[in-house]
Every structure is written in structure tokens, then in C-alpha cells.
């Protein structure tokens, strides 16, 4: 089937099998920052924001995501103007292999949109669906706190993402 998708503000007409997942359709069409880690809806590497809501794209039929705003990590910022969250992950040393990072960045973004100044429990809950095997999460939690501070201070937001508070 064919459908119109809106990814990071850009429209595209893509052909796909009726039963295809959003993950497969995105990756087949070059949206490779969305990673495949388990296809079980567990690891969060394939996370995207669907109308601002964090979902695992391997658990979403592509057909249900048509005509809806899909945001990936590249929609939050780019190399020249990274978002506060992305820059915070870099500065906190929260990126090791980086396979989980696009999903982590989106989860953090979604969390901070909802809770600009999250508690430790809220950080743990907000990133509960995103696995990382490299870091031990210490610096990921630091990155979330750093991003929260920076977003609230209003600086270094960059990118196309909403800067929240």
C-alpha cells in the first residue's frame, strides 16, 4: 500500500506492505537513526515520537502512523545545531556505542517536555523503556539532569525541537 508520512516536518509518499511496522518503513526509506535492537518492544532503540508521544516503532503498524507527525533524533537537532538534550548527552559522556542514543535522546526529550525538572524517580521511569548496555546509566542520568538545567535556563536549545519550559 501507499501512504503519506510526515517525518521531522517533511512529507513523503512511501509504498509499504500492509502489515509492515513503522520501524521497517522508516529504515527502508533511509530514516536510519531509528535503530533495530530487538523488535520486541523492549529495548527502545527504535523509539520515535508519534505526535509527541514516545513509542517503539517496531510495535506500531506503519499504516497507523500515516499523516501523523513522526519525530526522530534528527528532528530534534542536527550537527550544527544540536538540541540541548543531544548536547547534554555529549557533554555528560553519556554516549558510548551510541546505538541506544537516538532513542534515549527522544525519551529524554519526551520526559522533559512533560516534567521540565524531573526527580530521580521520574528520570528512571521516563527512560525505563530504553536499554543501554555500555554506560551503566550513570552518565545518562547525568545527561538528563544537565539537559533539564539547560532547557530551563533557555540556552543552547538549537534544533527544531520544542525547548519546553
Amino acid at each position, binding site marked *: 500500500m501507499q501512504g503519506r508520512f510526515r517525518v521531522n516536518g517533511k512529507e513523503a509518499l512511501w509504498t509499504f506492505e500492509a502489515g509492515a511496522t513503522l520501524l521497517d518503513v522508516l529504515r527502508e526509506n533511509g530514516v536510519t537513526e531509528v535503530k533495530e535492537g530487538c*523488535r520486541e518492544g523492549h529495548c527502545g532503540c527504535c523509539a520515535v515520537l508519534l505526535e509527541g508521544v514516545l513509542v517503539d516503532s517496531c510495535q506500531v503498524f506503519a499504516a497507523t502512523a500515516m499523516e501523523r507527525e513522526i519525530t526522530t533524533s534528527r528532528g530534534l*537537532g542536527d550537527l550544527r545545531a544540536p538540541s540541548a538534550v543531544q548536547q547534554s548527552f*555529549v557533554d555528560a559522556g553519556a554516549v558510548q556505542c551510541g546505538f541506544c542514543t537516538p532513542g534515549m535522546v527522544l525519551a529524554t526529550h519526551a520526559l522533559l517536555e512533560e516534567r521540565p525538572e524531573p526527580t530521580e524517580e521520574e*528520570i528512571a521511569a521516563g527512560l525505563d523503556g530504553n536499554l543501554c548496555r555500555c554506560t*551503566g546509566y550513570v552518565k545518562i542520568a547525568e545527561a538528563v539532569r544537565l539537559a533539564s538545567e539547560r532547557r530551563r535556563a533557555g540556552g543552547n536549545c538549537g534544533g527544531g525541537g520544542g525547548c519546553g519550559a
Partner: protein
Amino acid sequence: MSAAPKRAFTVVGRNVAKSDALALAVGTERFTGDFSVSGALSVAVLLSPHPHADIIRIDTSEAEKIPGVVDILHHGNVPEVLHTTAGQGYPEPSPYDTLLFDRKVRFVGDRVALVAAETKEASLAALGKIVVDYVPLEPLFDPERAMEEDAPRLHGDDAYAPLPVAYDAARNLAGEIAFTIGDLEKGFAEADFVEEQVYHTHITAHCALEPHCASACLDERGRLVVISSTQVPFHARRTTARLLGIPTGMVRVVKPRLGGGFGSKQEILVEPLVAMVTWRTGRPATYVCSRKEVFLSTRTRHAMRVRLKTGMMRDGTITALSMDALMNAGAYGPHALTVVSVAGGKSLPLFNKIPNLRFLGRSVYTNLPVGGAYRGYGATQAFFGLNQHVDILARRVGQDFLDYVKRWHIREGETSPVFRALGEGKEGVDQIIRSCKLDECIDRGAEAIGWREKRGKRLSPAPGRVRGVGAAVSMQGSGIPGIDMAAASMKMNEDGSFNLLVGAADIGTGADTILAQIAAEVLGLSVEKILVLSGDTDVTPFDVGAYASSTTYVSGNAVAKCAESCAAQILDVAADMLGARKEDLCLENGSVRDLRTDKRVAFGDVAVKTLYGHDQFQIQAQASYVGSESPPPFMAQFAEVEVDLETGKVAVLDFVSAVDCGQPINPRLVEGQVEGAALNGIAYALWEEYRFDGSGRMRNPSFWDYKIPTLGDVPRLRTIVVSSHEETGPFGAKSVSEIGINGPAPAIANAIYDATGVRLFDLPFTPEKVLQALRANVPGQCGAESRPATEGKEA
């Protein structure tokens, strides 16, 4: 051997951001699966449902009828080339016992056949149409039975070890190594008492988030290009070429960003499959393991049974120690010899004042998933037992564990006969310890965890809950001495920047950044001016790859040497330009300064002169390094636990790792390595586990059933980086990637004992096991401890 610093460090020791971090956070970096290979065939693999069976017939006729199927591989149509999947130096110390596809399957998950088709749907549909007739054979699951005469035999007479090492397929012996120093019986006879315990570690998974994957295609001139998620690009090239029967030079292996390895990708598993399809069909091919395939069919941490027997005097002097390690290799033997060798080789030297010492390491086949390299590489399994054993011994002579370790551990200027006795496939290498700040690690870690306030106090925050603290110490290495070689090359550009080409494989560790920092420090240049390209067998020089904690030390030394050679060339040109003597010049901030006149010439001007001036040449160099020793990093790790006496649940409240890895090149990356390893080790201790049914089938091959920690599972987790100076390392550095996984399990076990007086000898410490041990009200659940239960209170 590295550049002696003539000035304070400007780049080394700094928390430089990883060079790829921003691109990874944005999502522009590419992993293996992110390269679009147009028209690639999709590869799917049929796995054995049987733990042990002969294949008497494979019928692919129905599968071939599925539209889109292009090729089907199985034992009947691929060359029989015995090999090991272990990505190690050549000849490998692992047995050649594996065929790409065999007539026999040896574990549930073993490969039976492969389908290459136009789409993933077609390849999966075709798998279901392949008819295989198996004749089941008696399976062997118990490693203790493996060497018995009537045990089922896994491998035939054709399997062999390419190196002169102990290997006996007839007895299911995948590897054996042993040594004795002194007179063990005499040592035990002299002892005031003898302690003997048996410890069991279990099978676990690496869980790199990027599954194993590779793509292959033919380039414009018909050479085979393989893009792979590999820790060992050069070994992958060599083994792939051998399996295809083509010259090594016909294969190019490219390692892009890697989504984690931890040892799992030190294995040549996926490259030969896509390479074979592409070579046969001329079509590009791609294979991405499903998460279930990763669990069922790739590699695991070996289970090990470690029996420790120690003779001791009442003053704490150990008169004799015997370590008998039996490792479950699983169905094939990649790393079978070397992991069990490292179990002794990296643990026993830590206590180097034992006059009578014996080690026996045996690795045996069973019809279970295949063990491989996993961060810690046998040292983890050995330190689990050894640290508990030392805790038991110290308590028995009434000494504090930490005081005991500080009195008896190896020190600077000392050696251990074990270094020579245990190598990896050949004799080891004598070495003197030149840097060891383990005492400081112990003291600072103890302070952080509150050892003096908490040890032996059995604090109870609520009825039915009790707390304890425990510690563990460990060492690892920095590469395999005399074996691991790394090379680097550099060339200078017009703006004074350098391309640094290394064979080393950054698998997410930050190796590219570390190596750039080393080069930048030598050259007095900012780190952004070092442009690193790594792990492309056509472009970069050789490196054994990312394993054995080799990169910072071995590859780092190669880079330092290479950069020094470039620095010398810069000085030659600059001396001429400045009309100065070389010995009066120094390199700083990207320029050369005459110390007498303070005149400077920028690197860019030096480069432009050499490239475009008179008698042009390019400032460039290459260097190789092979370590003649393997300086160990040292670590002390501490756990505070709370045991729920009603449920048996163990919660880690606080975990501290204090590490001596020489001069940290990048302290934040050191912390990242240690924290990742520590959390992996905590989950290894408490819940991660392969669970099998009666036919050797893994029952939990998904992240839903094989849980790895999420952020909410992380206790307070701290890292203390204790600086030392390793004179043989680049700027004093040692490697650090593995060691952090060695301590959590024994530190937690020792903490549980501190809290409850109950000792746990079998990993993992699930609530069921802990409760069983608590209710049994005897210290331990297997391997009897030779003391009454009450003695636990004496600490």
C-alpha cells in the same frame, strides 16, 4: 616506551568529548545496518531444534519454489573447511572444530541451512519449507560428565588444534592447561588448616544492543567487500577468505560504528555467511540476527566450576593453593583454551606469595550454546570464587578482608611465576609489576562505602531486612604480551591537521578518541586536529582488534610511536625554517617554538612548505607495537547490600569501584567503562541467566525473559579513578575495559555473607536461591563450607 612528557599534559587526562558522540546523539553516524546496499539479498538461517543430532537428509526442493529465493546453503553444497569462529591471532589457540554447515548439529541453535532471497519475507518463508531429517543423538549437558568414557562424543577425529596445545576430541576435551609450582602436598601438610570450596558460575549473554550483522557486495573490480559489526576486522577478513578459499587480499572488511561488543563480536559468525552468498551469486547480501538468534545461536559467557583448596597458617600465611577450573565450552571450542587459561593467569598472580601453587584448567564440550569471549574472559569466573575464598580465609584467621588483601597482594617491583606459566596458547611472559596502586584503591573505596562503619554491623533498617558490605579485588591485563600487535599511520595536511589511521576497532569504547588524544599530546596539537579513521582492512594498518584490553595500551603505544616519528620530521623542517637547532625547539599549540628566541612557526606553515615548497615530501609515518608485557590494571570493588530475609531478595544499595589503570587518558571514558562493566556485573550476580529446558533449549531468548538492567535498576554507582604511572604505557596508561566486571559478583556474595552469615557459592543470587540458603540455615547451598554456621558472626 612512550613519549616522555616534557611539559604538563594538554590533552591527556582531559575529558575530551568522544569524537563520534555528537553524530551518534543526532543520529547521523552509521552502523552496519545503516549502509544501504541496493539490491541486497536477505539472508535467513535455519537453526537446529535438537541439541545433538545427525542430519541424514536435507530437502530444499519446496523452499526453492518460494518466489524470490536465490540460493540455499547447507552442508551438501559448501566447502568443508574446519575452522574456529574465534577472532584471534593466527594460528588461533582455539580448536578447528567448526564447519560453516555440518552434517551434525551440536546444540539447539546450531546452524543447519541458510536461505538468501529477494526479500526477508521470502527468505523466512523458505526456511519453513526446508525439510530436515534428523537422527537424534544422546545429548551431553553436564560438563562434569564430559570426560567420562561413556559420555556422548561431540566432535570427530578430524577436529584438531592448530597450535601444539592439549586437545582431545575423543574425551570432549576442548582445551587443557596446567602447572604446578613448588610442592603442593608438602604445602598442605605444613598448613594449620585447609579450606576447600567449590564455586559455580553460569551462562550469560553479552546483550550488545546492536545484534550481530553484516553485509557483503562485490566492488567494481570483483573484490568482496564486507561491512560488519566486528571487533576484529583483520581476523574477520582472514577467516572469511579462508572459508571461501580465496586470497585474503580479495576481501575487504569495513567496520563502521559498532553497537556494542563486550566480546560477542570477537567472533567470525556472520561475515562468512553473507560473503559466501555474495561470492556464489554475485549479488549483495545482508544478514541481521534477530534478538532471539543472538541469544540462541551466537556466543555466551562460559559457565565454570572452580574448586579452590588452600592450606593456611594461623597467621594468614598461605602454604599451598590449588585452583581446579572446569569450564563448559558448549558445543564448539572458540576461546575454550584461552578463557580457562586466563581464569588462572589473571587471578592467581594477584596473591603472589604462595610458595606451592597448582592450577588445572580444563574446557569441555557439551551440547549447550557456545561460550566465547566475554568482558573479563575467565578472570570474572575465577575472581568470583577467589574473592569469596579469601574472605573465608581472612575471617577464619580473624583478619579483616581488606587488611588481609593489602598484606598479601602483588606489589610494584614484584612478579609472579604464573605470568610465565600461563599464556594464551603458548607459554606466558615474565613480567615485573611496574605500577600498582591497589592499596590506594582499597583505602579510597573503603572510605567511600563506609567499610569501617558498616562491616560486620548487620544494620537492619526494618524488621526482616539486614544490610552488609563486601569487597572484591581483581586485576586484568593490557593486551596479550608477545602476541597482540597494533599498527598506526599518520599523515600531515596543509592546515597542520593529521589523518590518523589505525586498525584498532572502536566498538563504542571511545578508542578513536583515546588514540587521537595520545597523538595530539605527542604533537602538542589540539585533539580536533587528529582525524581518526579506524578498522578498514583496505585503508588502515593491521591491528588484532578490540579484545584482551589491548587498545589503549597496545594500539596507544603504536600511535605514540607513530606520532613521535611525525614530530621528529616536523622539528627537522621547523629548525630549517626558524634557523634554529632542533634541541631548542618544542611543540606546543599546533606550532613549533624556538625556546631561545620565542619565534614560532605554525604546523600549517610547516605542512605547506613540505607539500608545496622545495624538495617536497609529506610528513608521514607508520609504526607497529607489540607488548613485551601486559601491565595489569588493578581494582577494588565494594558492595553494600540489603537482604530481605522474608523473600530472599538482594538489593544492591551502593556500589563503589576504585581502579588503577595507570594514567587515565580520558577519565570520563574510564568511568564509563567501569560503570558499564560494574552494572553488567551486578546483573550477572543477581539475575541474568540462560535458563534451559530438559533438551538444552534456552527458555528465555528475549529481552522480556532475559532481563538486562534499566535505569531504574541502577544502585548508587560510583567510580574512583586512582592515577598511577605505568612506564611502559602511552603516557603512563594501562587498559581498563574489562576489569570492572570481575568484582561485583564476589563483592555482593561477600556482602550477603556479611549481612546474613550465609555464603552463596552458585551464581546468580536469585531470591529463590538466597531464600533456600537462608532457610537451610547452613552456610552455603553447595560445596560444603568447613565451618559451623555461627562462625559467620565473628567478623
